[in-house]
């Protein structure tokens, strides 16, 4: 996986959170994930990518960060992780994947994105294709830490 493939997702994540949730994320560590490693945090939004590139993008949040971001996103108090929080994380993942898709499109890579799925639970695992490498990027923000995980490869 080319390192430059991660940049559209970083850019789209920062832009989506700033525009829709008034949260300003700062990029922290970038690392390659090993097969079978758990998701970084408690709640993960997942979207599949298929076409000229294949893979997935995951936005993973600790419970507390997710609740703060979603409260700001919908403009209402969030008392706990309920179905509204899970739906909002799915929608945020959708917005990030959609924005990144546009950037890739302008660079000549065309692909479609799936509808989002959301997983909630400590140490949940996300099963990815074994031959598709995965890079994770952690962020800090005024709402707390979170991470994105991008697994992607070009189709010949």
């Amino acid at each position, binding site marked *: 996986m080319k390192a430059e493939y991660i940049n559209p997702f970083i850019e789209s994540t920062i832009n989506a959170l700033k525009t829709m949730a008034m949260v300003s994320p700062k990029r922290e560590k970038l690392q390659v994930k090993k097969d079978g490693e758990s998701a970084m945090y408690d709640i993960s939004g997942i979207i599949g990518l298929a076409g000229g590139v294949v893979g997935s993008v995951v936005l993973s949040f600790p419970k507390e960060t997710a609740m703060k971001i979603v409260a700001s*996103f*919908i403009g209402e108090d969030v008392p706990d992780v309920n179905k509204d929080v899970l739906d909002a994380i799915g*929608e945020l993942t*959708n*917005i990030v994947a*959609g*924005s990144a898709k546009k950037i890739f*499109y302008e660079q000549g890579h065309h692909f479609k994105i799936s509808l989002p799925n959301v997983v909630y639970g400590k140490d949940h695992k996300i099963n990815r294709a074994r031959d598709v490498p995965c890079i994770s990027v952690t962020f800090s923000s005024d709402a707390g830490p979170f991470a994105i995980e991008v697994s992607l490869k070009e189709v010949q």
Partner: protein
Amino acid sequence: MKILVVDDSSTMRRIIKNTLVRIGYDDIVEAEHGVDALSKLDGVGMVLTDWNMPVMDGLTLVNSIRSNDQYKTVPIIMVTTEAAKEEIVVAIKAGVNDYIIKPFNQNTLQEKISKILGG
């Protein structure tokens, strides 16, 4: 005026609904996908719809509305992550009156709705 908000995400429907209420429109009907929307068109004066949805997507919904004599002039705004020029052209050709790309600033949403309903 009754406004129909179509999106499979309850979060997005809520954000759009809150904006509509803020600018004075509180007669709002919600639908989760195109098929659901088609059954709720009666008396609707405007439709805001997402593109990517299960069951029936927003583009198919727009084509269905535009081919129905009773509703073909109802203003439609598409609110979507589909942001490539080619996709916007497809939506405009299908008959949407305006197009909002997610992520959007709530002021943008407010301006586009006011432009269509006020003009």
